[in-house]
């Protein structure tokens, strides 16, 4: 439009409006499939756990890995399409993939405390995977909040875990400039724990959408204008649906997670307790690969790498990714640069 008179610009805007109207029609009729792209079956439903086993590649010789996904988002983001599937990349590296998908939060969940998720749910899933595969110790991969759960479980029950992969996992909850911590400043978590109510998923969605909303706006305009490949466009729509679909948070467990960890930073202070048992990071006796994103706005890199100061250096390794939180989980670059390496590390030494 440079150098053109204002009348030309207005004509160009009229043409954009036409594309916009047609985009509206397309998007309204677009039935973007949600959910998993890799065949899977639910092998265990118990309490908040819906354990899925992915049917991909030969089972023989594959090393089982149990993925613990965060409870604040839907887990299907790790298998959102074949080109953006952590599940497939891990399977390609010789792993037999199980995933702890969480059941939809109901009112009955509001009284459940963190121990139900950290001890019981992960314990039940590990028992099942052990029984199904014959492996006594199981590889565990925890993502984001699921990483904190997995790490805590591995400290509390060190004999159960063979290798521990942590992905964008908060450990030092006061490190860096965390929007989550800032937003939780005025919330009365002790009252929430005493009078638990499930916290609306809309608030979580709002937070995830708050990174760079106007950057999103620019991307939307590019899509409306047709400057995006069809496959990218479909992926984007799936991601939009995912971001918009955060589950309600079980009240008491959420209050503990936010109050004990974001509020009082108990995990690195050594005062975090689950069902009366202290979570001592020094009890970790399994090899750990800590995968973090250098531009993570939700879990600042320092929050993840703080773990290194608490663990035997001979057991500890880091794998940085030059990108953001969600990018490390789904981006095409993470699929090439990070997930295969994590997969090889997990399946090594079988």
């Amino acid at each position, binding site marked *: 439009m440079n150098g053109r008179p204002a009348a030309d610009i207005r004509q160009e805007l009229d043409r954009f409006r036409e594309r916009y109207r047609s985009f509206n029609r397309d998007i309204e009729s677009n039935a973007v499939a949600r959910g998993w792209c890799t065949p899977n079956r639910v092998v265990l439903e118990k309490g908040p756990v819906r354990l899925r086993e992915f049917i991909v590649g030969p089972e023989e010789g594959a090393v089982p890995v149990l993925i613990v996904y965060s409870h604040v988002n839907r887990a299907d983001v790790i298998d959102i399409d074949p080109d953006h599937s952590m599940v497939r990349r891990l399977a390609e590296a010789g792993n037999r993939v199980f995933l702890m998908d969480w059941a939809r939060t109901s009112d009955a969940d509001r009284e459940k405390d963190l121990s139900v998720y950290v001890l019981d749910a992960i314990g039940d899933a590990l028992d099942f995977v052990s029984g199904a595969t014959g492996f006594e110790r199981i590889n565990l991969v925890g993502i984001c909040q699921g990483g904190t759960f997995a790490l805590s479980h591995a400290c509390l029950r060190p004999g159960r875990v063979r290798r521990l992969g942590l992905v964008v996992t908060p450990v030092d909850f006061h490190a860096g400039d965390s929007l989550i911590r800032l937003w939780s400043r005025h*919330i009365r978590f002790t009252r929430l724990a005493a009078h638990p109510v499930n916290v609306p998923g809309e608030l979580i969605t709002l937070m995830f*959408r708050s990174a760079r909303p106007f950057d999103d706006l620019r991307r939307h*305009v590019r899509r409306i204008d047709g400057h995006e490949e069809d496959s990218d466009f479909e992926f984007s729509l799936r991601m939009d649906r995912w971001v918009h679909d955060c589950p309600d948070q079980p009240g008491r467990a959420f209050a503990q997670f936010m109050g004990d960890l974001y509020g009082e930073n108990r995990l690195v202070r050594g005062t975090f307790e689950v069902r009366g048992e202290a979570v001592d990071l020094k009890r970790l006796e399994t090899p750990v690969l800590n995968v973090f994103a250098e531009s993570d706005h939700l879990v600042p890199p320092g929050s993840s790498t703080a773990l290194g100061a608490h663990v035997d250096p001979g057991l500890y390794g880091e794998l940085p990714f030059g990108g953001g939180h969600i990018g490390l989980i789904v981006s095409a670059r993470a699929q090439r640069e990070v997930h295969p390496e994590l997969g090889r590390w997990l399946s090594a030494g079988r």
Partner: protein
Amino acid sequence: MNNVSEHPTEPGPFQKYLFSGACYVSIGQCYARFVELLERDAAPAAMAELHPRLVEIWQEAFGQQMALAGGLLENPLVNRQPGLDRVMRGFQEEVLAQGREAMESFLETLAGHRDHIPDFPEFFQAWAEACDLAYGNLVRSDPFTEMIGLVVNGCIDLAAAGQDP
């Protein structure tokens, strides 16, 4: 469709595309007017005229981001939270102040390029960057975090009211 505010604000996974399109057109109209005034060699007038409209678009764009939380604010116990009026007033003032400052800075940047009239993609890009900066400041501000606390505490009070004997 000519105005951002004409668009429905009912949240949904794809509604933001529709809003973004409308927003783009609104900014395009500002740009057309900007070029028109520059053609008449009236740069100061362009700045003065566009500022309030750009602030308005910012407020609408921010409101759209917040639409998800809007339903929660209608909850009676959230409504009855002590200090709600003060918090909401402080929040609205902060939205306005951040928007005014960001759009002033955006227009000053444009005015600084006397030898070069930006094309629309440049104009739009600079506008979005100014808004992102203002948004980042806003969601980290005391009035905003206070409002989030109030909404969640209201939900907690609702639960407590139902649970107390």
